[in-house]
């Protein structure tokens, strides 16, 4: 991965007007421009799925900070994706209460059903599987998060049902 590649466009041409407006709001509530970095990464990622090198460089330029510094930030936080991900990123909780209440069975179910392992994306580009630390649903474990939604009290059937539902929605051209 070449993170110091040349940005052909200036950041204000690369970033959309609405992205810049959202980032500007984040800058306005902080004392420094770079304090908006994490929010800026999230804003662009929400629009484009993941943070590629050009996005990273454009955001850094917009925040008047070095690309390397922002790369350090982007790679630190697990909810920032520096590699392409599927349309639906499955964040499966692998912390202790899920571990005690059937996490492994859910993991095996997802792996088999989608034929992917942690860190991989299905060939149709729909699902990426990642682990996540405790999602704060310990009274309703096992738990996973896909997009904004938390799915709780998972069992084998329910997990497959959720995945099937999302695939159907996607086939119909809808989002969750």
């Amino acid at each position, binding site marked *: 991965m070449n993170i110091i590649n040349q940005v052909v466009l200036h950041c204000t041409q690369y970033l959309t007007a609405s992205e810049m407006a959202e980032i500007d709001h984040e800058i306005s*509530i*902080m*004392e*420094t421009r*770079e*304090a*908006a*970095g*994490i*929010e800026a*990464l*999230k804003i662009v990622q929400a629009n484009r799925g993941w943070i590629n090198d050009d996005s990273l460089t454009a955001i850094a330029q917009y*925040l008047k900070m070095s690309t390397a510094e922002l790369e*350090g*930030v982007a790679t*630190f*936080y*697990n*909810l*920032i994706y520096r590699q392409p991900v599927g349309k639906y990123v499955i*964040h499966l909780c*692998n*912390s*202790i*209460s899920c*571990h*005690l*209440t059937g996490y*492994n069975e859910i993991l095996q179910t997802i792996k088999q059903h989608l034929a992917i392992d942690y860190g991989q994306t299905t060939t149709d580009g729909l699902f990426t599987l990642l682990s*996540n*630390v*405790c*999602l*704060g*649903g*310990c*009274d*309703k*474990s096992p738990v996973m*998060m896909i997009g*904004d*939604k*938390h799915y709780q009290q998972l069992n084998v059937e329910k997990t497959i049902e959720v995945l099937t539902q999302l695939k159907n929605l996607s086939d119909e051209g809808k989002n969750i």
Partner: protein
Amino acid sequence: MQALTHPLTYLVNLATPLNLTQYTAQGGYLGAIKALKEFSPAQVLEIIKDSQLKGRGGAGFPTGMKWSFVPHYDDDDVRSKENKYLVCNGDEMEPGTFKDRLLLEGVPHQLIEAMIIAAYTIGANKAYIFLRGEYHLAAKRLQIAIDEAYQAGWLGSGIQGTGYQLDLYVHTSAGRYICGEETALINALEGKRANPRAKPPFPQVAGLFGKPTIVNNVETLSNLPHILKNGAQWFKDVSPNSDAGTKIYGACGRVKSPGLWELPMGATIGQVLNDHAGGMSDGLKLKGLLPGGASTDFLMPEHLDVPMDYDSIAKAGSRLGTGGLIVLDDKNCPVAMVLNLLEFFAQESCGWCTPCRDGTPWAVEILTRIEHGKGSLDDIDSLLNLCDFMWIGKTHCALAPGAVEPLKSALKYFNDDFMQHIEQGCCPYHGGR
């Protein structure tokens, strides 16, 4: 009267949280109005000190004392014009802990009211709610409540006709457990990698953007409106024990009814586990438990009578932490449980200091070996050495010592299980994971 016995949770509505009008009709914002109109910041500080409120985020530091470290300058001192900050730590990521989520999603206006009181007391005009990125619903509900509060003159300039101004923002994080450490949280809020900072200087003096900053947990803050409304003496009287107030206790694992309950501080472990969580699920026995999240020492069935307050749990050899029981049953392998916990700490180590960055993965390697029946007696010694290597005073922050707590106590209480793994060459619970 629920308001006096269950102050934190009696207005919680997870389906549809109270809007500002409804919250106000139930006595909401009375605490804030009392603070702003009847008391000076110094007087509020005295009330909070007198209430003996302690931090509910895990460390149990007295809140009033923490606030008192914020410097106050005379009006003619240029430093009096500098910003101060209040930050609410809503980065709830301690495994087995889900209490703040209840308050964030169920009664967002309570937190906003609390932050007005806290910010007024320390003299902050800007405040942030640092929310973990996964709490999408909480973020949405908080923002709606904040917008309402601005419209009704509870936030912004000249709050409720006083000269006090406060702006409140929600910052959603992008993951990583270490953000819950208050100086790491400040770095994250500044857009940096969330490495903890060296202390001193303490954040109360030089925190966010180098300015005096108070970081308080969601549950800690949520007590403030009620202390203002009902008085410090009421708060002390709510609990029959040495620690004041109520506590949101939780239980998870294979118990009959996992959940959260607001009880007087000092309810016993047995009360939480048996009376509220309904005891162990059918066919299972209690093997041990972590009393307050992943980074606390194991306690055993003989500890069921221990009150869950800071001192009593400490005397029993653990920490109250977040007050959320993680219950281990007799069909789950304790070695596998400790392995899961250490995997968590190894993954979430920020990598700044060697004992943590290298020690936690090393422990994972050894525990994996033991769990899969390939361990030796030397491995137990190595683990004990690591517990020493990663202990308080040898690391940059409390993450690695937090990892040591369940590990070291497991080696003590579940020695037989570790030995069986080594002697039988397999996991006696499920023949390896």
